[in-house]
């Protein structure tokens, strides 16, 4: 049976006009993602990985020029107006951002901020929405959720706030979750918890996930397929297995070499020389 994939990106190019002529931040990117699978996008700052995710959400700055095609369940997203995108944002595609400390509005309770996401798409009474929010908070394992729902963002730790962001993303059961460096701002133990949580929730909901990171160690834990980007180009693609065992591009190899290895006799030396 021939099914349309969840997400198909074809020849995506994103261009910004600058004082010294147009600059491509993403060049000719193609990728396919099925439900229940995770695509890791790896690259350094400025490689265009975040721009790609913003293009899927329709959140690029208005000066950006987008060409190519992004299809979600066969529906073309490139060229949609901001108003048309609103039915997709949150509802079909949700996003978890890098910095949980500044991604929540300090003036409103976390309950309200999740609730407004839910109600702006599904409507209904505040009471009904509150039940959904409470459930979402419990799913991301906020302890004592019934009380915490009325707390403000500054009353939560960084890891907790990222859980709240995930709860916000999941309360509408989106088909695609984009996690843009979701663990970069967190310390290592919290990072592992968040990764586990994301993987678990993905199994429950069966959504597809795009996981953006600069950290190969992280992407190896979550993604089945990997794109490696540099300066707006895809320099390598393949399954996680292929990329780690047999990297083709020199850039990928240098990224892999930067990882600490347990079997590297010079590891200790390099560490001290730094």
């Amino acid at each position: 049976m021939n099914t349309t994939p969840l997400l198909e990106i074809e020849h995506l190019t994103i261009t910004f006009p600058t004082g010294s002529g147009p600059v491509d931040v993403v060049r000719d990117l193609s990728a396919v993602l099925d439900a229940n699978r995770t695509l890791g996008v790896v690259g350094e700052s400025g490689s265009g990985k975040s721009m790609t995710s913003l293009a899927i959400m329709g959140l690029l700055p208005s000066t950006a020029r987008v060409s190519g095609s992004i299809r979600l369940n066969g529906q073309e997203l490139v060229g949609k107006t901001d108003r048309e995108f609103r039915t997709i944002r949150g509802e079909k595609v949700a996003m978890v951002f890098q910095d949980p400390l500044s991604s929540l509005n300090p003036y409103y309770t976390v309950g309200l901020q999740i609730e407004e996401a839910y109600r702006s798409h599904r409507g209904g009474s505040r009471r009904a929405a509150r039940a959904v929010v409470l459930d979402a908070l419990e799913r991301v394992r906020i302890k004592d959720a019934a009380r915490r729902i009325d707390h403000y963002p500054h009353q939560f730790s960084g890891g907790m706030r990222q859980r709240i962001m995930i709860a916000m993303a999941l309360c509408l059961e989106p088909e695609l979750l984009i996690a843009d460096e979701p663990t970069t701002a967190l310390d290592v133990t919290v990072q592992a918890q968040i990764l586990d949580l994301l993987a678990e929730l993905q199994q429950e909901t069966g959504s597809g996930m795009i996981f953006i990171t600069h950290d190969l160690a992280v992407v190896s834990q979550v993604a089945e397929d990997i794109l490696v980007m540099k300066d707006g180009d895809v320099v390598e693609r393949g399954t996680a297995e292929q990329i780690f065992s047999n990297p083709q591009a020199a850039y990928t190899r240098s990224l892999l070499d930067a990882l600490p290895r347990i079997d590297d006799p010079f590891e200790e030396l390099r560490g001290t020389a730094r």
Partner: protein
Amino acid sequence: MVLYLLRRILSALGILLLISLFTYAIFFLLSPDPAVLICGKTCTPERIDQIRGQLGLDQPFWVQYWEFLRGLVAGRSYGDGPSAIDCAAPCLGFSFQTNESVTNMITSRFPVSATLAIGAAVLWLLAGIGGGLLSAVKQGTWWDRGAMMVALGGISLPNYFVALILQYVLVVQLQILPFPTAVEFGENPLLWFQSYLMPWLVLAFAYASMYARLVRTNVIDTLGENFMRTARAKGLAAPLILRRHALRPALTPVVTLFGMDFAGLLGGALITETVFGLNGVGKLAADSIAKNDQPVIMGVTLLAALFVVFGNVIVDILYTVLDPRVRVTSR
């Protein structure tokens, strides 16, 4: 919360006490002998001594200051016996020029300053916040540039200059408004309104300019915050994003500024009141400075300090309601 309130009010009273001490000391040390001022040109040394005794000017500084404070709280009387003059609390003494009670002089003029301040505040909040918001949303357009140019003018042009131009254009040239006259609202509401309109506009222009620039910057900063991106990524409608997520963080700092500015104006707008001949507390201050009428200067200074200090307390209390981050730490 109650403890916090109590602490704030106590510290405000402490500040007021310090201000009164400093102003009293300045007038005590720097001004010419009040007895000579009161007595006038034809004066005998005996008469001067008599006045000194009656006002307690022969007492040391601390005794005089203490008497002043006591008069403020409990009232006092000058001199003894049948010639004693009573001064009910809050007693600020009597004008050296007119012998009028300073407390009465201030309370009779205060409504004028309050009317001026309230009317101007309404205008400048509307124009400042409205203009600033529009400029922020239409950032970089001709509207934005034009509005910010005008605002720059409002900030840099002195009040009296704007007042003179306005009077020349509206009253002399176009003859839209009559010359401002002191008239009660009850006597002639239209003339009352016309008389206050120009002072309101002049004051509001300066403040609105400041507010517009502040609001514009605050809104633009807020629009760039990460939580705005989150709000958009949730699929919220644009008006809701602006109303809920941008306005509150952007406008909360305006509350601080407004509290201070409005409280300051209640203590009298010196220049505007003088230029338009409005008989408010500001004009009283200007006149008493010109005549070195110490008790009056002292009185209006303390009144202004009172408003500013308690304006501050009110802003702080409001903040605990407006900003959840303050709410928790203040507990």
